[in-house]
């Protein structure tokens, strides 16, 4: 399996990359970590005329503290860097917990934050995390820069709101640390595989154990990561009892309308979606470290 021919550019600064993107438009694909694009090139499922390799652009690889207590992560930051970052563990522990589920460490050595989020695989973890955190995506073009909220960014399978000539350059994530409880759960065929169904839950509880804020997103159950607003509403203002968890589970199953594929049917995803959400919430409530893998 060898790639078809393409023209190759390796810009050494962001401006150059953006010019190239503007010039080549739909003819071009951006090569970041390569863990998603290279298999497609090798299998000739993708045959771009132009490949723009952005790995040589300096200053796109950073994890910086943001004034609001969160983080600004450069798009070219390797997933492995995020995995090992003390800053991430401290400020956004749910992200630190989710990243090890992405493939295997060799993949994370090359795979980037921006690459995974731009690729927008419906079964990927990072888009769902981004959505759960109400993250913001910074899109740069030769003439402009704009900031999109995560909820406006993921449009369809493998399709985002990145426009012609635009490149994702930064991911902004607010802090969700000690005052938040978090849970991250997924069901995979094997560890490291894409999830068949996954859920992220973030809960802010007050001193009396009443839920003040809730964020539930899911991956693997639709064309994009989904936020289940009805389930969140059911939790707000309540203590989270077993009954409440069953309700949430049922609501999630009702809300989901997934597709079937060879790994799981729509019926499975619909029902197990409810189960996995319940588990993510249980994990959030019960443990100090909310991470567990199905």
């Amino acid at each position: 399996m060898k790639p078809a021919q393409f023209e190759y550019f390796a810009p050494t600064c962001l401006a150059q990359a953006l010019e190239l993107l503007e010039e080549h438009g739909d003819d071009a694909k951006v090569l970041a970590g390569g863990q998603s694009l290279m298999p497609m090139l090798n299998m000739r499922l993708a045959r771009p005329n132009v490949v723009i390799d952005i790995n040589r652009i300096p200053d796109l690889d950073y994890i910086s503290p943001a004034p609001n207590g969160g983080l600004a992560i450069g798009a070219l930051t390797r997933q492995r860097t995020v995995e090992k970052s003390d800053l991430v563990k401290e400020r956004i522990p749910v992200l630190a917990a989710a990243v090890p589920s992405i493939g295997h460490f060799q993949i994370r050595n090359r795979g980037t934050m921006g690459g995974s989020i731009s690729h927008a695989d419906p079964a990927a973890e990072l888009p769902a995390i981004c959505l759960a955190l109400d993250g913001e995506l910074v899109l740069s073009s030769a003439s402009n820069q704009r900031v999109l909220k995560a909820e406006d960014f993921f449009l369809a399978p493998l399709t985002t709101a990145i426009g012609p000539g635009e490149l994702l350059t930064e991911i902004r994530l607010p802090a969700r640390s000690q005052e938040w409880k978090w849970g991250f759960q997924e069901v995979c065929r094997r560890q490291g595989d894409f999830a068949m169904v996954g859920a992220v839950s973030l809960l802010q509880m007050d001193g009396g154990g009443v839920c003040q804020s809730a964020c539930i997103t899911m991956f693997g159950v639709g064309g994009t990561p989904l936020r289940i607003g009805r389930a969140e509403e059911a939790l707000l203002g309540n203590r989270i009892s077993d009954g409440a968890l069953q309700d949430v589970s049922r609501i999630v199953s009702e809300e989901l309308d997934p597709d079937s594929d060879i790994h799981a049917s729509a019926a499975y995803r619909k029902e197990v979606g409810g189960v996995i959400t319940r588990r993510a919430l249980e994990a959030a409530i019960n443990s100090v470290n909310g991470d567990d893998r199905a």
Partner: protein
Amino acid sequence: MFQSDEDISRPEASRMVRGRGRFLDDIKLPGMCSAAFVRSLHAHANITRIHVEEALKIPGAIAVMTPEEVLPYVEPVRPAAPGSSDFARPYDRYPVPPGKVVFVGEPILAVAAETPHIAEDMVDAITIDYEPIEAVTDVDQSLAPGAPTIHQGMADNIVFFREFGGGDADTAFQQADLVLEKIFNFPRQTAVPLEGRGVIASYDRGQDHLTVWTSTRAPHQSRSVFATVMRLPEYGVRVIGPDTGGEFGIKGTGYPEAIILSFLSKKINRPVKWVEDRMENLLACAHAHEQRVEVSVAAKDDGTVLGIRSKVLVDQGAHCLGPTSAGLEPMTTGQSIVGPYRIENYHCEAYGVLTNKCPGGPYRGVGTVQGVFVIERIMDMIAQALNMDPAEVRDRNFIQPHELPYATVAGRLYDSGDYPGSLEKLMQLSEYQDLRLAQQRARANGEHLGIGISCFVEHTSTGSQDYHKRGVYGLPAFDSATIQVDPRGNVTAAVSAQSTGQNHESVFANLVARELGVPYETVKIIEGDTDATPFGSGTGVSRSAVSTGGAIRLAAQDIKQKVLELARFFLENEEGELNIAGGEVFVEADPSRRVSFARVAASAYDASREVSLPASIERGLRVTRSFDPPHQVFGNGAHLAVVRVTPETGVVKLEKYFVVEDCGTIMDHVVVEGQVVGAVAMGIGNALLEELRYDEGGQLLTGSLMDYLVPTSLDIPEIQTLHTESPSPFTEGGVKGVGEAGTVGAYTAVANAVADALLPLGVELTEPPVGPERVWSMIKTAQGNQ
């Protein structure tokens, strides 16, 4: 003194850890170019036109090889011909489509280019006009009245049919207290060796000679196929098998790509290399295991099985890969269903049915995995119906050691083994009673812990007698060894087997060293090159320890006899008993009188200054012997798996695994352990992960390793093993094969464990629990039925 197998250095390992293996794709020849294949996009279609002009314009393109250029010059292979198999229906298989294609991925034409990239560019630039025909994609469609016939000259799509058995099944069913009728389904799977197929074909037009390097387990059989198909004498073909990165059954013979490439090499007068990529491997190499088995079982209320009726339907794909493959899975499954049990009434109808999918071929555990699944699930179902422990039901039915050799009603002869003893050892190894107690506690806690057992026999090393009994002729079932001692006492053993990961280089060298009494370091094994090795069947059917090992033992005995005879010239014409140890020939009665093996060897070549042999003594020290296993010999095993199932997600976690294994006399403990553990891992994958799926049009949906899943390190629990030996009375040294037993045991032990875990939910498991979706669905179905 021979080396302990823990201590021997293994030359094959030494070069592999340095990255100095020489696999097919590592070989570079002067003038070599790259090939790729244009493959069918349709499951069943007439080819009306092929357009190659654009491809030939690409810079770096060299040539194409179309079906019209090959067809006039080839003999078809008759994979299921009378005379090759009495029960198979004949059809002609050509290496290129004779006007129509019969499966998606079928190779239609080959291209040659300066690089593999350009070869693929050429493939992209070639277009083919097809007229699609209705395709049949499962056994029922294929057998339906009015179904399109896949191969010309056949009346229908049944490529193999045999009815066999013995005893009186009707009476058995009349006498039964319990009758079970079940249908078992098995998913389609494939071997996925880490290295795919590869071929370098080099045709020398001056010599009219073809050399083919190919990743294969059977170089001599491959050579025969080339010679037959291409109408060359055997001496006109040389096959060289390099280091091979695993094969598990599928790198045998019968692949059309190699033939097409040989013609291509001849056309362009250059060596041509093709390395299969993973997508081609999954799409078009060899598929296996897809079957439906319908059984009726008659039992008494004490758990004794009185009789079985079975119907085995194998989805054979569009072609059979070789003379045995039409009947390979149908017969192996049909004969395995009786297991290690005393079942005296049996009737089996075994079918091989063609469909428009990738051709069927062998994958470790061929047919036995399904047969064992059937009978072991039946044993558990009987236990469930009669409220007995599954181990106890098996004990009721085992053939006892003193009854062996035992002729089964399914047509096999079990040579030796202690089946109840293996289960007993398994009970102890696994602390079975404690496991059942743990299960009770878990169940009280609402957890779904399951314990699964499989007891089985595994046929190994089929010889010609057994092939004839099956109605298969014309298939070499012997292996050979040529042992030569050179003038300085070093020893080579050239064998017909080919290692594809079985460590022949060290195992057989150690065997030669032990048999001759010489140091291990002085022995070299030669494999893989038909010019340098004697004719034989090759590797497969877990045969090498028996058949190649047998040939080595016989040849070594002959060499030893001659060496002792020559040694007498060095020992004052000593007439007493002589022996060899540590590289020295010595007088048994007075070991101080000795002469080195090397000094004796020199005399055979007139290279000795001490002794001149009389002219009457044949010069040289070289013997070729063959061994044809007089019977298949049967290893046996007992496996136990412990699983935890989460019903709400269908996820299965394998927690513990225990193996009791009996492969007769063990030649190399390290290698046997490695084969067992590796095979168990493969069986775990078969039971929980592996499935090839097609859509209704015959397009493969599981086209990459992201969709066809094989086990990683995290899928395999600790495997505890215990080895026991029941030597075979039929082989040299009492050895039996072992390569497939682990897979056979694990496929079913894991499935039985999942079934056991789900018993409280009313689930009846009749197929391997591949994937959480399947387990979840079974539970839903059971809940719906309540």
